[in-house]
Structures are given as C-alpha cells and as structure tokens.
C-alpha cells in the first residue's frame, strides 16, 4: 500500500470574520512565526527571481558546542533572542549580530541517568510581557528581563530526579500567560501542560494529559496505569486569541511498545488524551474538546507537534480549521471551534502500521506489537516527521512537509513501570523504507483537498524545520550542511549554501530597516533522532556545531 487519501469535507454555517493572519513581517515574534504556527513570512524582498544572490550577512557562534543549535530564534524590534543547547541566551542586534546582552544558565541539577534528563538541547525561547522565557534541562522555567537579560523569575515545573523529564520545547505566549510542555513520553510519568503568569511567574493552571480518578477520561486507562501513562506534550502549541483557545498536540502513551498494563483494547481503553489534539481554555486550562489521532498508541506515534491554525474555504464555506500531523504521517484537519473532524490524509509513501483509515479518521487493520513477536512497521518511531516543523503558505495554500521514509522492527517487552525511569518496553532497530533509495522528501500538500502538489527527494534524513515566504520560497537545511531554497509553487531548487555543519534547526525571516534577512541555525545533533539518522548512514559524518548563519541580498541589489 502506498497511499490512501480519504477526505470528507462537511459544509456548515459560514461565520463572517476577518481571516486569521498568521504571517510574520519585520518581527518573528513567536516560535512558529505567529502563534498559529505557519512559519511563514510575508516579506518578499527575497524572491524567486533574486534568491540566487542571497549571501551571508553575518554569523553568530554561540560557543556552546555541546551538540547542536536547534532553537528557533525570536526577533522583536530589531533584536534577536537566541538560546543554545545548554541554555546560554543571547540578545543580538538582528542587523549586525552584535551582542546586546548574554546570559548563561548555571549547571543544571543532575537528573536520573537513562531518562530524558540526559538530553542536551533547547528548542527556543518565548518573548512576551517584557520577558525572555525558556525551559531548562532540569525542568525549571526561567524568565529574563528582555532589556537587560537579568533573571526576573524562575520556577521548578517538576523535579528531574523524580520525573525523569525535562523541558526542551519553546514555551508559548498566550495573552498574559506563558505555557510550557515537557518531555517524558518514554518515561513512567504523567504528562502535563503548565501555565504561569508572565509578570510574576506564579502558577496559573496545570492540565494533565491523563485525567485523574473521578475525571472524565480516566476510565480509558486500566487500573492505576494513568499514573505513569506518558502523553507528555513535549513541543510547542498554538493560540487563537479570538477564541481564547490554546491548541496542543500530546505525546504517545507509555510504555511505548507494550500496552498490557494500560489498555490491550484500543476501543475499550483508548488512553485519553495521549496522541491527541486538545483545545484548552487559555485562562483556566479546562479542556474544551479533543481529537485522538492514535487510540492506544503502540508505535511511539506522538501527536506532540505543531498545530497549524488557518481560515480556509471548505466546500464553499469559510471555516476556522486546523491541520495537524501525527508522527505516523496521518494528517488531520479539524474545525478548530468545535473539534469536528473534516478530513484526513496520509503523507509518507510507505505506511504499513495500519491497513488504512476511514473517512472519519478511524484506524483499520492495526499491526500491534506484542511481546514475543517482532513487528515490522513503517513509518518507524523516528516518524514520518517529528519535532522539525512544517510551514504553511497562505499564498499557495500549501503545507510544506519534510517527510522521512523509514521502518522499524519492533520487539516488545513487558517490564513494569518505575516512576521516573525509562518505560519504553522494546527495541526498534531502524532501516530506510524498502524500495526507497532516498530516505526523505519535501512535499507540498493542500490541506483542504488532501492532495500532494509536488515532491522533491533527498537521500538522507531531513530533520530541519521549514520556512515559507511571500517571495514564493521555501527554505530548509540538510544534514550535509546545505541550506537551500525551493520554489514554493513547483519545488524547483533555486539556491543552496554550504553552512559548514549539519542543519537540524529552524530558519526564520525578518527585516531591519527595510532589509530582509533569512537566518538558519546550524549544528547536527548526534543524539536522539539525529543519532538514529547518523547510524543509518555510517559512511556519512555530519558535523555538530552551534552557529547561526544570517543571509540577505547584497545591499546594492536589494
């Protein structure tokens, strides 16, 4: 089976409204560009006709060569805020790279070895309310004064020695609050989102992915399994200010590859609200609605990724929708006001973990891993796509999706949980999908029709985020070190530049004094998914590093 495409679009009453504008302009104020996670810049000074002239304007080396530079930079009023893997934070003049202030987080408290507390990475800061806010390896949320870089407040979201978790994602600003999710999907841990008041760091609310006893949804867990059932929402969500709603994708159920303790029957024990998209009231953290993409997940198929909010005409009616890709590559379109399911399409070419999906999103013919057997499924637990984000261009109406084609042979174990310790229960050796000489492709998809518009192959694993711009360009980088631009309409490669180290981060675009810049974070990561990728291609040696490369058109030609 190579592809299924089942999309039903139900027309309902149209609502008159100003369409949501998720484009960035001079600033790049949030992790996903705007809080709707488009990763799209309305700047078009750099465009398909002149992109070949793009050249480095300045570089910034963080000096923190721990492993990688993955963070999406934030730009506000000509100042760039950048965090390194070990939480050194820099405020830079976004036109020159000159340092305005810098801050270095101290040595984090050690966590339990063999857990997420080992991971050395940081995916970005959030800027809002006069603060620069980030999570740490030892599960603190820290707010710096935006003008001086001095610590304003710091709060322990959890204890890494107990939870085995950490904070790697960029926080999300939602009004006067900052919301942070955490790692811990592979740990005997109960995931949650926590919101704090930006002004003083005080707790606003906490929402547990797994409902406790007496709460609706707790009955979807066997016995006490809700206590350690995972679901950690380890990436960054979205915010619709008009609806005062926060949207977040949640992590996989734990243990990853064995469900005997928690389910054993996806219809009876779907393990809510893991592997789901949830809509929460931004003020209270109360659940408004949910949509579970993978009930009783057994393949490590998180839903923790970007939730792209957009307003589109669907069957002749303007609707407020969202598009969201599960790690399996199943991509769901929902009405973001009601949670109504509008359609689903499958992005990877090789999918064998299920036989298919119904029009309303139900999984058919699951290949469940079981102890004592080896179950070979595609995609692998590395995902059709994981933490690197797609982009959405309102100009073309397409999603730009970096897609990986790998499979894994899952062998499960049935070890019991121990709080804060690894709770994965299985091995999952990886291979490139059979019949695929190229392990990745970049695709353009129309989320409303569910059709793939174009695809461009790439030999190794693409693990960088995408950037789309109004210059009809799509930017991303590869492990070989090339940062490149494609034509957003056709996928034609228009420009590339060797940055000197593997690209595993996120590009942004912004402008200062009328000059458009495109910035890419570089430095491969030999751990986690980057390590899987490296070990798949042992003859390659993708380089670590921690350098931001900023491009612009030469002054004379712009």
């Amino acid at each position: 089976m190579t592809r299924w495409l089942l999309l039903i679009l139900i027309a309902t009453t149209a609502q008159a409204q100003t369409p949501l504008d998720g484009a960035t302009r001079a600033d790049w104020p949030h992790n996903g560009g705007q809080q709707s996670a488009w990763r799209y810049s309305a700047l078009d000074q750099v465009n398909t006709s002149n992109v070949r002239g793009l050249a480095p304007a300045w570089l910034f080396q963080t000096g923190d060569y721990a492993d990688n530079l993955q963070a999406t930079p934030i730009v506000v009023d000509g100042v760039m805020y950048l965090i390194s893997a070990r939480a050194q934070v820099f405020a830079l003049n976004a036109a020159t790279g000159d340092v305005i202030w810098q801050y270095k987080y101290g040595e984090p408290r050690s966590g339990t070895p063999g857990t997420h507390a080992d991971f050395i990475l940081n995916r970005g800061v959030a800027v809002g309310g006069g603060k620069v806010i980030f999570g740490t390896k030892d599960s603190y949320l820290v707010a710096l004064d935006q003008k001086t870089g001095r610590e304003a407040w710091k709060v322990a979201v959890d204890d890494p020695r107990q939870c085995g978790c950490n904070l790697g994602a960029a926080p999300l600003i939602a009004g006067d609050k900052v919301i942070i999710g955490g790692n811990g999907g592979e740990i005997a841990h109960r995931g949650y989102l926590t919101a704090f008041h930006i002004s003083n760091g005080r707790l606003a609310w906490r929402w547990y992915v797994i409902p406790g006893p007496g709460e609706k949804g707790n009955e979807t867990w066997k016995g006490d399994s809700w206590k350690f059932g995972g679901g950690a929402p380890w990436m960054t969500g979205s915010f619709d200010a008009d609806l005062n709603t926060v949207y977040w994708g949640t992590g996989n159920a734990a243990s990853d590859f064995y469900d005997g303790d928690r389910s054993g029957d996806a219809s009876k024990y779907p393990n809510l609200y893991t592997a789901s998209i949830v809509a929460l009231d931004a003020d209270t953290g109360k659940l408004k609605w949910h949509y579970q993409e993978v009930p009783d997940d057994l393949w490590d198929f998180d839903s923790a990724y970007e939730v792209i909010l957009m307003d589109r005409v669907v069957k002749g009616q303007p609707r407020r929708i969202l598009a969201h890709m599960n790690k399996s590559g199943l991509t769901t379109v929902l009405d973001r006001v009601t949670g109504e399911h509008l359609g689903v399409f499958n992005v990877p070419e090789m999918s064998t973990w299920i036989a298919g999906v119904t029009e309303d999103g139900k999984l058919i013919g699951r290949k469940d891993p079981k102890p004592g057997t080896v179950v070979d499924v595609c995609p692998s637990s590395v995902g059709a796509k994981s933490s690197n984000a797609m982009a959405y261009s309102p100009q073309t109406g397409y999603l730009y999706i970096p897609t990986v084609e790998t499979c894994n042979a899952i062998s499960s174990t049935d070890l019991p949980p121990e709080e804060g310790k690894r709770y994965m229960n299985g091995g999952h050796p990886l291979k490139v999908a059979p019949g695929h000489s190229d392990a990745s492709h970049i695709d353009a998809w129309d989320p409303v029709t569910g059709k793939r518009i174009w695809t461009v192959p790439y030999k190794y694993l693409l693990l960088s985020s995408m950037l789309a711009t109004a210059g009809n360009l799509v930017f991303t980088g590869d492990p070989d070190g090339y940062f490149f631009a494609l034509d957003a309409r056709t996928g034609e490669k228009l420009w590339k530049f060797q940055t000197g180290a593997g690209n595993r981060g996120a590009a942004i675009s912004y402008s200062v004094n009328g000059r458009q810049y495109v910035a890419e974070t570089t430095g491969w990561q030999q751990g986690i998914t980057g390590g899987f990728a490296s070990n798949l291609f042992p003859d390659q040696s993708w380089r670590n590093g921690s350098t931001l490369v900023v491009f612009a058109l030469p002054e004379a030609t712009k």
Partner: protein
Amino acid sequence: MNRLPKTLLLITLLAGLLPAQDLATVLKKGQAVYAATCTGYCHGESGAAGSAPRLSGRGFDQAYITGVVTRGVPGTSMPAFNSGISAADRAAVIAYVASLNGIVSPSLGAAVSSTPATAKLTGEAARGRALFYDATRSFGRCSTCHEVDGVGIPVAAPIAKIPADVAALRALATPNVLNVTVAGESMPALILSRKAQSVVFYDLTVAPPVLRTVAASDVRIGEASPWRHASAIASYKDSELSPILVWFQASRAAKN
C-alpha cells in the same frame, strides 16, 4: 520476553575463575538494567546502535566501559551514571556491556557485593516516603519545597528538626517567611539574599514557589508574614502526615 543470548551462556560456562552462578546472575541482571536504561531512544537492543553508538563488538575493555558509564561523555547525551542507579546495578550493566565486547570473565565488582545497597523501606515508612513525593498531588506535595536524600526541590533549608507529631508539623513556625512588598503588592517571601543591587526571594503566594530577583529599590521587606506551613500541606490528611513523620524518623535512624 528477552532470553539470555547463547553467547552469554557460553561465557558463563567458560568463566572458570568465577562461580558460574554469580556470573550468569549478574549478566542477566545487567541485561535487564541495560534494557530498562540504555535502550529505547539511545543504544539499541543487545548493544546494537540506536540513536547512540553501537556498544557490541567494539573491542572495549572493561576499564574503558567503567569510565564512560561512571563519568559519561561530556558534551553529549551520555550521562554519568554515578547517581540514580545502585552500585550493584551499575556494576552489572558494565559487566553485561563487557560481555558484548567478548570479555569472557568480566570483573563483577559491586554486582556481587554482599553489602545491601540501601535498606529497603517497609510499611509506614515506605508509605510516608511515597506520600512525601506523591506526584498525584501536583504542587501540593511536600517535595515541591523540600529536598530529602537528593530528591525534591530545595526551596526550604534542609529539614533539621523532625516535628514531634502531626499537630506540630501543621503548626510549624516559619519565622523566616516575611512580608515583602513589590510594586504595591504584598506577598509571603522566603528571602535568600539582600544585596545593594537586588533582593532574591521565593514568592510563596501560590505553589510552586517562584524565585524572584527584584531591584532592591523596588522591594520593601516587612515583618513576619501570616503565611502558615499548614496551608502548604493542606492536601494531606493527618493519617497521611503521620507516616511521613515515621519515614523521617526511620531515615534519620538509618543515617545515625
């Protein structure tokens, strides 16, 4: 379930210098520790590569393995397994990885040491410990503010004096909690430092405590706050605080 690989059985038979029973037991234990700690997102099963490098058949000697396991690899995701794991488990996993590198009779070290790692808590003390760190209470648990035996957030100073009973625990005096005013708002605060430039304190208004750094000119430090320890432990019933005190006593007795 995983079965012990045949090579391990072979090694067990060949290891003449060690009691075969000990070696087989340790390697089996080491394999279990490996499966629970080293596989998953890092090293693959039986030392195959995962996201982290392959560990089998690399020609590692045991001293090298021991060094990497205990010290980690700085600048990478490989941590130092020098805490959060018992000496016996660490020695067992080192022996197991040694076996994956063809070392026929690995040194077993602490893996067969006769001294128990730590006395296992039982009964009320075990229940008390679990209640102290009880994650289902979210920020209402004791460890939101107290670190004991390296676990918990060290907001308060280490617990020096164990309250005599539950009533005393609830009524605990907190003379260090002062009323602090910032920008016209009063709050209960535990002050960590007062310098000419800035004041650093924990705002205890709501759990979890917030460590704040405020310019000295913006802070007014007042008298004792009406904040009470009883409010911080309100989620606990008397019947739950009692075993926590039993654990404190048992833990203190074990150290002395």
